[in-house]
């Protein structure tokens, strides 16, 4: 299967309906399962409950408990068995309930999922998907709002993607499941209930491409997942003040689409990256470093990182102070010495 083929949805080409990101992901799983019986889904509470975010709602009823089932409560076990299932020839899609609960699976992901294909010279590839509801801004108690993307993105052998909207959620999840490479598929929890009109099956750009989601000429704001909205909000507000902001939705963290990002930065000569995770060692460091490496002589100012503070994710009542907001983005842009441009 290739990424560009036309997808058939089980409930083929529907008329556009309002769909949440959770709904789009649900439809992607449903259509992938209907199309390919090697696709199996398991994890904690994905069966009768339909997942704590309802992403697997109704799927067990439809496909039965040999296609989608509740596993014992052990994340290393979930990923470790998925490796075995993938070796056999299945295409498991497993769910980690929250970022922080993927940590028990860290060894299986880093030492096996990422390395199996290389170790075996391509004889054993692992077409599996690890879905991780990620990031914060949902009023979750401790351990429910981590941003784990930098751990995965810095691990060679993994593909790490994060959709920011329902259409991408559908299309990218289908593509991730069809991929022969293992994919860490991160789903921004705070966007689960964001809606968009969708006619399924929808195919958006290939998942390894970044997209310019708003054109502008003065600044490039680079976001992914939940911060794409933040960037768009900031762009709206800035427009009122005459500042033209271009917004890039990375979509794929690894691989990284240098072409799209660099093209935008060369146009605007200024860039900032936005993420929820702490700044120190966060994914924004890679973005800033590579944008600078490739476009140093085009940059009028250093690449800014507008991120969470370098602290553990706060409790619900304090998270608003931690998260990068459109206001904070605009304030950060003020710190540039604009006159040098």
């Amino acid at each position: 299967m290739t990424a560009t083929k036309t997808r058939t949805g089980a409930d083929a080409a529907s008329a556009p309906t309002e769909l949440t990101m959770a709904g789009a992901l649900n439809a992607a799983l449903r259509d992938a399962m209907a199309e390919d019986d090697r696709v199996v889904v398991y994890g904690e509470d994905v069966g009768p409950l339909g997942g704590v975010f309802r992403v697997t709602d109704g799927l067990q009823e439809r496909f039965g408990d040999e296609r989608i089932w509740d596993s014992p409560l052990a994340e290393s076990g979930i990923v470790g068995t998925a490796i075995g299932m993938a070796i056999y020839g299945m295409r498991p899609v497993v769910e980690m309930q929250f970022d922080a609960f993927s940590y028990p699976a860290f060894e299986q992901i880093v030492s096996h999922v990422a390395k199996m294909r290389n170790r075996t010279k391509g004889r054993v590839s692992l077409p599996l998907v690890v879905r991780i509801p990620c990031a914060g801004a949902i009023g979750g108690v401790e351990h429910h709002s981590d941003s784990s993307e930098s751990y995965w993105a810095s691990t060679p052998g993994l593909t790490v993607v994060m959709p920011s909207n329902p259409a991408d959620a559908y299309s990218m999840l289908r593509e991730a499941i069809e991929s022969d490479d293992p994919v860490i598929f991160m789903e921004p929890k705070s966007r689960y209930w964001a809606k968009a009109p969708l006619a399924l099956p929808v195919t958006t750009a290939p998942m390894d491409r970044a997209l310019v989601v708003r054109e502008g000429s003065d600044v490039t704001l680079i976001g992914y997942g939940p911060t794409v909205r933040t960037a768009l909000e900031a762009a709206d507000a800035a427009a009122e003040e005459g500042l033209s902001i271009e917004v890039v939705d990375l979509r794929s963290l690894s691989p990284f689409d240098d072409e799209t990002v660099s093209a935008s930065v060369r146009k605007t000569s200024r860039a900032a990256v936005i993420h929820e995770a702490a700044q120190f060692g966060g994914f924004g460091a890679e973005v800033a470093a590579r944008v600078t490496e490739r476009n140093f002589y085009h940059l009028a100012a250093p690449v800014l990182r507008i991120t969470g503070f370098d602290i553990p994710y706060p409790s619900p009542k304090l998270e608003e102070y931690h998260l990068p907001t459109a206001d904070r983005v605009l304030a950060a842009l003020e710190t540039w010495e604009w006159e040098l441009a």
Partner: protein
Amino acid sequence: MSLNVEHHAARRALPSEKPLRLLDNAGHAVTGAATGGFSLPDTETLLDLYRKMVVARRFDVQVTALTKQGRLATYPSAYGQEACEIGAVSAISADDWLFPTYRESVALLTRGIDPGDILKSFRGDWHSGYDQRSHRTSTQTTPLATQALHAVGLAHAARLRHDPIVALTFLGDGATSEGDAHEAFNFAAVWQTPTVFIVQNNQFAISVPLARQTHAATLADKAVGYGMPGFHVDGNDVAAMYAVTRAAVDRARAGGGPTLIEGLTYRIEAHTNSDDPTRYRPARDVEHWKRRDPIERLEKYLVSEGALTEATRSEITDAAEALAAHTRDVITTESELDPLELFDHVYARPRRALLEQRARLEAELAEAARNPR
């Protein structure tokens, strides 16, 4: 050496498959093999346990109500699990350490922690709300089974110091599937630490029933694989939970090593307020277990023994109502939170980068105060 032989036999003893109990569901004292050789605590102790359970139930119901009103971010209720939690936690002393999960609010209450402090994390004020050191109670731990290792480590440290304290930890039926549960059981057994593991088997891990967590006959059976005594106890019988835990605590304190105790109970409420149990279990199961209520069971016994006077009963009700009122008060009072405190506890040694970030937030807040939107 007969000691060795006995010891060795204990390493391989299968827990009884029927849960041990001292009081049956009708509130009658149980005799014979079903008690596993444990005896009913004295009436004073039972009355104390009863009082704690009634107060705790009232607290739990109150908090669930407040949560429905949106006063808490989340609340994992312990309704129906009072005997399991309170029986176990009452068996340790103030000097011992407790390592709870998020589910043990009523155990914390029993341990003397203020409702406001217990609930700080669920309100969303701060990740852990009480003084862990003065209460010798670690944080309400969310990453499943991880706290069991902390309990083993603390117990081992105490043992190295010849400090005769015990660490008691709770973990859920679901949590027993995690690798950390295994590592905790094993470290405790190999090091012979004074640790008591209470596996609170409420038969669900969110939506997932016990049968999908284990193929073992009982969760207490796991003890065999570590050469540690295991007990399968009726978790709705507070007398049994107390007696068995007490024996384990005494043994641990005397240098006899760890014990695994499974309390078989049932989660009457949803996993938390954001859960919808109608999706995965029939209401009649809940009804069935409501008829095995741990408080009613003990009450029947105490009444039949003439140990529960009307005066005591109303005194307990008053105490429960007072606590509920206090809980309402603290929860409906606005919390005072200082966003700048976010930076203050991350490291013992202050970091320049954090001080800079703190200053930035401070300026932002000052600016916002000057120009409110």
